[in-house]
């Protein structure tokens, strides 16, 4: 109905290749931007904003993981560890050298990119499940190393307190202040990803995913681009780790264990592999699901069971429903929320006519 190509003529390649060629899409994006920047922080409570903040952090990580898994076709179960690399790099730089946020953020990302590229080296020789196992090993090795090397973590089971982030002399203390910082981060990550996947690099990544032999014959150095995908993806993961650490105010190895890696994989699978909108929707879905379940059980669960059982059931229910959600998506809509959105959009393109 609103989403129509008819009547929109493009006379230059630049217009045809712009991010949002349709005027209606540009308007929709503008509305969403106004909502996010002006409306939501005005009307939402601190608690609701904290949920947004968690989603924004997750968006950065999910976008990054999707570059590797969705676009390049290389599986990683080690992204939780790459996040912890970023987190501890930033925490150590902030505490020991008293470096400001604008240095520790990219530093954490770059360190994670370095480690991520090293973990990606076996990807030239091994594929699929075998690569998944190598990255799983990397997750465990990095986790163990961080926890057991006092130079990095300050000792076993110790957390490092980090100061609140500040930019240009402004200190982000409350959830409302952090909201703007994290919105900026998620926005920059989204735009960077959109640009990346429509450029020469993004096409090379998809080529490796779709047909690695044909990619080589068109002149793509597979090893280089696989490592690059690992590095870029891990950079995003490292930045996610830094943001989360600053958000919480402490760096702790327990925040980046294997379940985090699985959570992020779930986000991109539920959201839709190989798209930019998918990870954003997936990040929101996976972040809000446990909150939604807790709310539902707290209001309705009392009818079914007593309080003690309820307290025990809620965390397990989250894991169960999570698994159910992934299975459902894999069976019903393997291309995830992104495909659902596109299907409904295409339906309304011709509505009220059938074609």
């Amino acid at each position: 109905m609103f989403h129509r190509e008819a009547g929109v003529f493009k006379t230059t390649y630049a217009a045809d290749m712009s991010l949002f060629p349709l005027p209606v899409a540009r308007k929709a994006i503008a509305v969403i931007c106004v909502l996010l920047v002006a409306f939501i922080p005005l009307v939402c409570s601190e608690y609701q904003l904290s949920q947004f903040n968690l989603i924004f952090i997750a968006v950065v990580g999910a976008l990054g993981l999707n570059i590797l898994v969705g676009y390049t076709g290389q599986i990683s179960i080690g992204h939780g560890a790459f996040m912890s690399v970023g987190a501890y790099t930033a925490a150590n730089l902030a505490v020991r050298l008293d470096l400001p946020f604008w240095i520790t953020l990219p530093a954490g990302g770059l360190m994670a990119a370095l480690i991520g590229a090293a973990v990606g080296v076996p990807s030239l020789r091994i594929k699929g499940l075998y690569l998944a196992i190598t990255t799983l090993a990397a997750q465990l090795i990095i986790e163990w190393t961080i926890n057991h090397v006092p130079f990095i973590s300050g000792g076993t089971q110790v957390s490092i307190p980090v100061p609140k982030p500040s930019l240009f002399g402004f200190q982000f203390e409350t959830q409302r202040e952090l909201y703007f910082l994290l919105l900026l981060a998620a926005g920059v990550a989204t735009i960077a990803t959109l640009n990346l996947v429509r450029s020469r690099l993004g096409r090379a990544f998809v080529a490796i995913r779709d047909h690695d032999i044909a990619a080589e014959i068109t002149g793509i150095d597979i090893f280089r681009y696989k490592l690059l995908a690992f590095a870029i993806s891990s950079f995003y993961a490292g930045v996610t780790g830094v943001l989360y650490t600053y958000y919480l105010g402490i760096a702790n190895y327990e925040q980046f264990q294997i379940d985090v890696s699985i959570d992020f994989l779930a986000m991109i699978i539920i959201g839709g592999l190989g798209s930019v909108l998918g990870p954003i929707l997936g990040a929101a879905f996976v972040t809000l699901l446990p909150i939604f379940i807790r709310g539902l059980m707290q209001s309705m669960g009392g009818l079914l069971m007593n309080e003690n059982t309820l307290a025990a059931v809620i965390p397990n229910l989250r894991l169960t429903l999570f698994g159910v959600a992934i299975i459902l998506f894999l069976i019903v809509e393997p291309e995830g929320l992104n495909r659902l959105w596109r299907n409904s959009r295409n339906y309304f393109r011709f509505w009220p006519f059938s074609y």
Partner: protein
Amino acid sequence: MPLPMPADGPLIAERRVAAVCASDQSERYVTPILTVEGLSKRFGGVVAVRDVSLAVPRGSITSIIGPNGAGKTSLLNMISGFYRPSEGRITFEARDISRSRPNQIASLGIGRTFQNIALFGGLTVLDNILLGRHVHMRAGVLKSVIYWGLAAREEIAHRARCEEIIEFLRLQDIRKQPASALPYGLRKRVELGRALAVEPRLLLLDEPMGGMNQEEKENMARFILDVNQEWGVTMLLIEHDMGVVMDISDQVVVLDSGQRIAAGRPADVQADPAVIAAYLGKTR
């Protein structure tokens, strides 16, 4: 021959004229663009290619024919770098490429299509062809991420090049369709387009007409001749359709059981007793 040009070089249409003019020079058909000397490939005890030598003259269309299992695709795989030769040398434009990687060979100016179509199914026709421009583009990570102003200019310049190929191969109406959704004949054409976008000086075609009907074969034969004559691209192709091979080739090389049994002009090869024996069996 012109080297891969910068993005702001002359358009393909202009270069076509240049290529046609250049093709009148005596250099054409005389100097080999590719020479293969004593090439062998063994897989364990199996000898796929045994001591094969051939020279592909610049500007020519050379066909490799032979019964199934003769080693044609293995030979092509060695030229394009997927197999390491067990023995022998491959020289492209006076450069030894026997040990080069496929992506290095592609950037030297050798394009290739595959027997079983190898398109990037998730990408559109346009993006498939743009991928062929990969070796001519420069944008790195930072430029790609920032895009506006930096990578955008390059993308648009190369888009213009791709549109010429799209026009040449008459793919205009499907340029935004995903490659996986296309019928067989069109996918073969898109694959040719992607190989052309690399701007190769030598194009290796592995059964470009395999599985096509008569009309599609005629179309493809015309495209091959056009690419060869207007763009000045040397062709080395494997094909089973003898009618097409004899019609369009300047030179035919016959392989049997990994060995070269004949080479020469189509008419000579057709009359060669060794070739007849290989295809039809020996007479007593």
